[in-house]
């Protein structure tokens, strides 16, 4: 009787130890992300092939909400690491001192455009996320519209009321468009361009992917959005063309950064290291035609071949540091005028 009890006890203890040691090995890493919902599982699975001991706990939402969440939690961060959020947002966090700089292994394999310029970078990019125009061919024909080929084309009177774009005050994509126009056409030229474009805009949406989806659904013929969304819609059978305007396109990247103060620094660094490995980059490449790894990317279906060449030399710092000013100016010019008759 006493013997069995001892056995039971030691057995239980052993089991407990096992559980604890197991728990000690597998780290739960809270990862904030804006990566497409359908890609999350694939990303985590691929990562776990190499690092089964790190358990990713995804916190996913749209770019705006994840950013707002991180900013709201500034004094009490919940995240350990960000994997897949717009670099623009990460710049914002960097300037709040929220990021823990870290130089991941293999950084030299990356195009310098794809990481923070500081000697120890605060963030490292994954893939690029490019602006594009989605053009619904069926609706275009119905309305006798020719497909636009440049940004300037969109200001032609023919397109009046047929263009839709995201509101930069509520959408990161919208801001990406605006800041790229200011860089392409210069500050004054940019505003002149938007003044003209505003005449043709049917309305501004709150979300960046919505214009393309609306174009795909024929709700409006032309949506200023980003290429990824267009490609997905095209894949789903929408009658749309993805147009990369000739003047060049603004872009942002999905990037990775470690949150300052995390108590799981080692695991976070492991993930950061892995996030720029060739394997990871190939994984990103299945959806995105432009990735950070030099000379790796293969073309992705439905993305026009000129995508990479037309990406402008985006000045993220300019965008971040002038964001408030640009948004205020935009709001003054177009939001207060949006009162319908």
């Amino acid at each position, binding site marked *: 009787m006493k013997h069995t009890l001892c056995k039971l006890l030691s057995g239980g203890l052993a089991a407990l130890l096992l559980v604890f040691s197991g728990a000690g090995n597998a780290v739960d890493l809270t990862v904030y992300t804006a990566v497409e919902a359908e890609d999350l599982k694939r990303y985590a699975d691929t990562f776990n092939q190499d690092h089964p001991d790190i358990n990713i706990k995804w916190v996913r939402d749209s770019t705006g909400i994840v950013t*707002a969440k991180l900013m709201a939690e500034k004094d009490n961060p919940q995240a350990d690491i960000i994997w897949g959020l717009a670099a623009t947002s990460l710049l914002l966090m960097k300037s709040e001192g929220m990021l823990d700089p870290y130089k991941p292994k293999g950084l030299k394999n990356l195009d310098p455009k794809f990481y923070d310029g500081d000697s120890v970078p605060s963030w490292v990019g994954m893939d690029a996320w490019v602006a594009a125009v989605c053009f619904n061919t069926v609706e275009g024909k119905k309305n006798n519209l020719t497909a636009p080929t440049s940004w300037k084309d969109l200001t032609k009177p023919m397109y009046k009321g047929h263009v839709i774009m995201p509101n930069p005050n509520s959408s990161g994509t919208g801001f990406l468009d605006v800041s790229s126009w200011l860089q392409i056409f210069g500050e004054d030229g940019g505003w002149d361009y938007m003044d003209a474009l505003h005449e043709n805009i049917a309305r501004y949406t*709150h979300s960046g992917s919505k214009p393309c989806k609306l174009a795909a659904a024929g709700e409006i013929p032309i949506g200023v959005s980003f290429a990824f969304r267009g490609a997905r819609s095209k894949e789903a059978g929408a009658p749309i063309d993805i147009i990369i305007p000739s003047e060049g396109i603004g872009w942002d990247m999905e990037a990775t950064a470690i949150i300052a103060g995390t108590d799981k620094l080692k695991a976070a660094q492991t993930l950061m290291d892995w996030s720029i490995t060739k394997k990871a980059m190939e994984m990103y490449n299945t959806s995105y035609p432009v990735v950070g790894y030099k000379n790796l990317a293969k073309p992705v279906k439905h993305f026009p071949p000129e995508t990479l060449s037309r990406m402008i030399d985006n000045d993220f710092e300019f965008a971040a540091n002038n964001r408030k000013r640009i948004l205020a100016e935009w709001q*003054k010019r177009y939001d207060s005028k949006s009162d*319908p008759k």
Partner: protein
Amino acid sequence: MMTSAAQATVQAINTAAPLIRPKTSRDDKIMIGYMLVVGLYLIIALALPLYAMLSKSVSTFYFDLNNFEFQVNNGDGWSAPATAFALNEKLKREKLKREKLQAVQPEQLTTSSDGRLAATVFFPDFSFRGSTRYRIRQINPASSFLVGSRQIVDTEWHEFESNEFRRIYLRASRSTGLDNYRVYFSTPALFLSMKNSLLISLISTLITVSLAFGFAYALARSTMRFKGLFRIIAMAPILVPSLLPGIALVYLFGNQGMLKELLLGESIYGPIGIVIGSVFFTFPHAMIIITTALAISDARLYEAAISLRASRWKTFWTVTIPGARYGLFSAAFVVFNLVITDFGLPKVIGGQYNMLAVDIYKQVIGQQNFEMGAVVSVILLIPALLAFSIDRVVQKKQVAQLSARSVPFEPKPHKQFDAICLIYCVLVTVFIAGLIGVCQYAALIKFWPYDLSLSLNNYNFDVMDGGGWVSWYNSIRLALYTAVAGTIIVFCGAYMVEKTNRFVATRSAFQFLAMMPMAIPGMVLGLAYIFFFNNPANPLNGIYATMGILVVCTVTHFYTVSHLTAVTALKQMDREFESVASSLKQPFYKLLSKVTVPVCLPAVLDISIYLFVNAMTTVSAVIFLYSPDTTLASVAVLNMDDAGDIAPAAAMGMMIFYSNLCARLLHLFVTRKVMRKTQAWRTREGGSD
């Protein structure tokens, strides 16, 4: 005969009798303890978050020019340190001479938490190709500056070449004041929203109340058929999120809409869409209130009118309208409040027509400007609070007006009138059922408008934004928790208020707190929760980003109506039950469990279904509070629509509708069953006296 007590009495004639401090019984102690708990709940879940939001709205940011010092070296040694303020003053003076110079104006110094000011503005001759070197430091570490996006918080001197110096941006210091409000009112785009919100709310209120009045009038005053069916269909909008009609309207009147031509070229995206959608989702609320108002009107007045040979038309204006006027007022205020605080609908169908509730979202989610979000919230509180207090005053008057001796009105058949009523009700119910039907249809279409074959693809939520099927499951969980926890909290709170004899001050304070949530827009509450609970110094920080905070927020958001339902039920109980129980030395909780709760069971069930349905449909209160583990169906509808997945959004919306429908049916079934079992005393024949 003179007892010593009597002698004492005689002696004490001039001295006052001893004052009595009632001994507090165990029951009293438990009750006050519980009242404190529920009171504390309301303070934590309502008062403190609102306070946190108010403080946030007066938390301002400004560029403290006196805190930054610069030195310049043109190759001839470092100049004396000069503050940014001094440099700017110099610029102002020199501006008189040199036209092109731009000094920083005082209003530019007010900014938000994210404000940045380029250091180069203080150096009019700056050229990034120049060989001049610059030094900058802050005098005390209250603010910071950026080199590119690297934040410098120390007070050392930092030296830069020209090319680097153009990357220097000053950051703002924190302060307190009303500057955010000043900025709000001087920004036309923001100010415009207030006008828009008021206008839309007024128009929607006018239309909804008129339509609902006609509907309620037809139900109460005609002898048409299908009254029950009409009533049921008219109640359906309560079961869906407010943004669902928006989705239906896109399918009906959008550019690819089935009935697009009806709009004669006007766009559904904007005020028209918001108003139609608002009428849809506020209709049942107005109808319930007006139906009640019409039901209590006195048949004797109509008999009098008939005996005076007044025409139907005249009777309508002299008897019906005055009799129902408080109900109409009340309905108007409820509708107004619902519309002005609604967020989902303008977000979905509003286009760029700005409304206050959407502005909060834009400020917080789009620009991460929490301070301005708080300012807009406070502003949104004003019309809501105003409508609420006017309604309270009107309601008080109404109580005085009601006569207990009224005779219910029995409508008499009138062919023509009944036919008109029938047509009218058919039109209204077709509108309501139509919008819901369109959503269901849209949810089943493969790819509107290019592939009209039916499929269940849109129900494949797991590959879309919004959290997938888990969201729906989470919503059910939230609704259940809210219904259970909320009913217990609310009912016990109401019991304490209604059935305690003592602690008058505590009780009225509690009553005030319980009435508050009705005037607080969900969005404002949700934002206030972020400020309050997401503070590491808050010991309750742990519930942030859990299901718990969603339950607390939802219970609080819908507290008032539940509380009033409970109070009404409790008021109908004999006031002396508690006295009898204590004279029989039975604790109050025994009375509560054996008598009060069983007798009030119908009301208890009503409260739970009310909380359940609202927890399923609410968007505004939880939009800022859900976490990835607690994504909700109603928010998923919004996010899917936001991402352009309109058909799946409609599908999820319909899932909410069906869930609520099931809950309602279950509630009906349980109520019937429970009634039969525990309320037997109600249904049996009374004895004869």
